[in-house]
């Protein structure tokens, strides 16, 4: 795994409540922070009810103490549905990386984009649609290299209920696998072959 090169790396996950957006961010933050030894800062915002509605979580990873806790301009945006993409895309750094769930984002945008069908992979390969968050996390980890897979795995052991650990680990690996197929250098536009099958 390549070491993190930037001083401050900003990640935003966006989707709808119930997609596990915040949990994915927490696992990422804990892995990058506790296991990989970075400074991390994880924040989120949500509607008044914490059920349904939009959900957004951010992780800032840095080698130095973090002042402003939010993403100033995300280096990476993960959009888990169309609405999430629409609202959050304008904030993305110009050279930033956009990752979308190809199963749920219809209008494929222009720019550096990685579209992977996280939800579909979760359903098919993991057997649980709600594991899409971990599939996405695996992909993000692989694509950004800001966090170690080992760290993620350890975190899972610590954070998630024992009975779901195996499934989550599986999802993580499925995400990594899907991301491996992505050739970042072939961007700005890329659609993951998994998606082509549809």
């Amino acid at each position: 795994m390549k070491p993190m090169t930037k001083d401050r790396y900003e990640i935003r996950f966006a989707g709808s409540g119930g997609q596990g957006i915040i949990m994915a961010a927490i696992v990422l933050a804990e892995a990058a922070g506790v296991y990989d030894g970075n400074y991390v800062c994880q924040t989120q915002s949500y509607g008044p009810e914490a059920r349904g509605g939009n959900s957004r979580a951010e992780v800032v990873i840095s080698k130095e103490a973090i002042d402003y806790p939010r993403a100033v301009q995300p280096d990476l945006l993960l959009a888990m549905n169309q609405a999430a993409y629409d609202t959050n895309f304008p904030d993305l750094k110009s050279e930033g990386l956009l990752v979308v769930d190809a199963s749920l984002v219809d209008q494929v945008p222009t720019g550096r984009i990685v579209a992977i069908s996280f939800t579909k992979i979760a359903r098919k390969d993991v057997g649980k649609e709600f594991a899409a968050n971990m599939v996405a996390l695996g992909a993000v980890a692989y694509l950004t290299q800001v966090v170690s897979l080992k760290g993620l795995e350890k975190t899972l052991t610590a954070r998630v209920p024992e009975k779901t650990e195996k499934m989550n680990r599986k999802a993580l690996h499925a995400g990594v696998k899907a991301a491996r197929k992505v050739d970042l250098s072939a961007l700005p536009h890329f659609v993951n072959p998994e998606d082509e099958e549809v």
Partner: protein
Amino acid sequence: MTKEVTKLIHKYLRHDKKFPHVWCPGCGNGIVLGALIRAIDRLGLEKDEIVLASGIGCSGRMPVYVDFNTLHTTHGRALTFATGIKLAKPSLTVITLMGDGDATAIGGNHFIHAARRNLDLTAIIINNQIYGMTGGQHSPTTPYGCYATTATYGHIEHAFSIAELAVTAGAAFVARGTVYHARLLDELIEAGIRKPGFSVVEAMSNCHVQFGRRNQIEDPVTMMKWLRDHAVATEKARKMKPDALEDKFTIGVLADLEKPIYTDEYQKVRDRAKSLARQ
């Protein structure tokens, strides 16, 4: 009533508000919403005549959706606002909609005093036995031994019986229903609104998300079945042995008394005051 149920409901909804509503899939609050509207429709009340006041909680979100004079007060205080409204304009039909926490935790005092005072208000309490909105902390109706985010080791307090409390405090009409027994709920709410004086309708409801999840009932269907299987009609309960009623609760009308109504009484005070002032 049986025909065109949904259509008549739409007549009372605020369609410029974002539907589907904010509640979780299968949440009992939606069923109570339907029952309330059907009751009002049967009563033939004008929308302008009705005030629906709620407190804070998942249940407290209901007024947003209905096209009456609606009021979303502070946590626990719906009955106090309602008291002011009713006294200021007795011609209005004032209904309060509260959660179990709202009505009997922070709002418990207003609840028993409203019952004592006997103003012509209708208090509908959605009892889901938990604080839904804030994330599943135990409420005054959470049963002993259950789990909640603030009762991780099992709840050690005992639950209020909301309806029974209302009876002792002096409410003129008290009833309990469930969201499973929807037709009965329609009727109880209708009777409650019709009744002059303070009426209480406790609606046992399901919060499978915050209550169910922590108590091995993850879905609305199982919770509704639980409601179905643990409710006993008041008439039937009277003939049953206490033992058999142990884990049951009664549904139906618990009290229906004739008591002088506050606004009538106050009109007499006005008359007395004026005649004394004239002397």
